[in-house]
């Protein structure tokens, strides 16, 4: 039985990885999950210098979902290269580094600093809704998205995954734009922008007012977008948004995802990813499927 998939020339032993920002750089979750069992580890977004992130409260629970406005707190690329990459290299898994920035220059600086590091793939987060200056604009305008892809590609030695925002009128336009810009893969969806109000205090629950909605609540939107993008572009897709079980992961694969990422579900069950991998194996056994790649995009 073959569970391995290929993203832009990088072979993952299975299609399951954490979604950026929900798994740190793996260290904390290594108490719960054998990192070597995962298809890849995707790190929290990393920027050129340390970012302090937003004020608290940074999260709120919603029905079958949650809002977050962490605001990309991270130690910056230097400490990241010194500490997190060597840590991850101890494990037999692929390393995907999520990159964030406020300007094209900042993105390029991080990508350049990572270019000689033992990193397998770069995921460029042009869609984080929580950063005031810049960030989101790249992910909501096709021309900006194409331009930043082109720039980043100049500095990258690893294949580039562009992470798309769902807060757009037409996700296929965005996917086509980054493909035209040279993206080697796309990942989707990032969070939907949302808000929660404490009606007793008459105040925003999050210090940042708005936050990104994730979790099972958004899965139908995510599956739809993966399906649409699969019809529109040729690059491989990493699908995410509300995956909490093998069946959820299979929905994304059948819709067209080559691999899947699991975010919010880690908070509900820190051992969810190995369970999903096992569930994929069970499904393939049950339906006599020898290669998981035969499932990609076959829904009808």
């Amino acid at each position, binding site marked *: 039985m073959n569970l391995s998939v290929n993203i832009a020339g990088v072979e993952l032993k299975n299609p399951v990885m954490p979604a950026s920002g929900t798994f740190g750089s793996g260290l904390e979750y290594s*108490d719960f999950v054998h990192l070597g069992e995962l298809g890849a580890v995707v790190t929290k977004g990393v920027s050129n210098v340390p970012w302090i992130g937003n004020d608290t409260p940074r999260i709120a629970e919603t029905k079958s979902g949650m809002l977050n406005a962490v605001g990309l707190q991270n130690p*910056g690329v230097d400490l990241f290269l010194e500490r997190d990459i060597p840590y991850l290299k101890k494990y037999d898994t692929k390393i995907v580094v999520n990159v964030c920035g406020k300007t094209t220059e900042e993105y390029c600086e991080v990508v350049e600093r990572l270019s000689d590091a033992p990193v397998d793939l770069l995921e460029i987060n042009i869609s984080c809704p929580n950063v005031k200056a810049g960030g989101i604009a790249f992910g909501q305008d096709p021309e900006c998205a194409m331009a930043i892809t082109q720039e980043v590609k100049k500095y990258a030695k690893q294949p580039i995954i562009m992470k798309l925002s769902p807060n757009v009128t037409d996700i296929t336009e965005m996917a086509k734009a980054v493909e035209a810009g040279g993206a080697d893969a796309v990942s989707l969806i990032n969070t939907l922008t949302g808000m929660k109000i404490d009606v007793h205090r008459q105040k925003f629950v999050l210090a940042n007012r708005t936050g990104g909605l994730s979790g099972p609540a958004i899965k139908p939107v995510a599956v739809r977008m993966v399906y649409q993008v699969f019809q529109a572009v040729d690059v491989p897709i990493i699908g995410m948004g509300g995956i909490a079980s093998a069946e959820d992961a299979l929905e994304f694969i059948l819709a067209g995802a080559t691999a899947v990422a699991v975010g919010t579900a880690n908070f509900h069950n820190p051992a969810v990813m190995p369970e999903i991998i096992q569930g994929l194996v069970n499904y393939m056994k049950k339906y006599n499927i020898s290669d998981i790649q035969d499932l990609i995009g076959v829904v009808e």
Partner: protein
Amino acid sequence: MNEKREALVLSQGEIAKDIFDLWIKQPEIAGAARPGQFVMIYCEDNSRLLPRPISICEVNTAKGHLRLVYRIAGEGTKEFSKLVSADRIQVMGPLGNGFPLSAKKAILVGGGIGIPPMLELARQLEGEKQIVLGYRDELFLDKDLEKFGQVCIATEDGSTGTRGTVIDAIKEHHLDAEVIYACGPTPMLKALQKYAIVHNIECYLSMEERMACGIGACLACVCKSVGKDEHTNVHNKRVCKDGPVFEAREVEL
């Protein structure tokens, strides 16, 4: 490997209005728990994804029992309040750093639903203990704590003990100590932080923040810290992992 574990509900009762006293059996967690640490309790209802952090109130290591005392604050704790003996729940822990133990003369301060962790702390501290409890009105856990030291009570409405805050009670009873341990609402922690700095007393505060992962990975639960945090090298420590207990001079409240 650490993991989310199943626990057996041994008993549950309401010890004051909306305050529940839950005993569960979970030997692995009970075996490792230290005062000031917490557990995460998961909801059975699938619309509620995030686990709820609840402090460890008392531990019976030999039997593998844990006591949790919590207030109904929303839907999750309301769900827990319906648990009855023989039910099963999912729990993760123990989490966080816990209070540093010593044999110094101590004041233990608990405010409202910050009182529960003071019980296991009182049981484990070896030095002289003065225990100050702040309530809005109705008392709970005060009898349990009396076994371990002098208990001074402050109530907002003056129905028992000092009318006012725990600081008022400390002053009224002329308490002094080499170390203060505290858990309770932010205004109380702020007042104690100031008190400790002014009186130059070692002081440990247990902080509260919204949590998602509970293990230091998601950066939901940070508090402003004086020093840079080791994890992201900014001035934001993680309450779940670097805390929930911080030395008073370490954090900005």
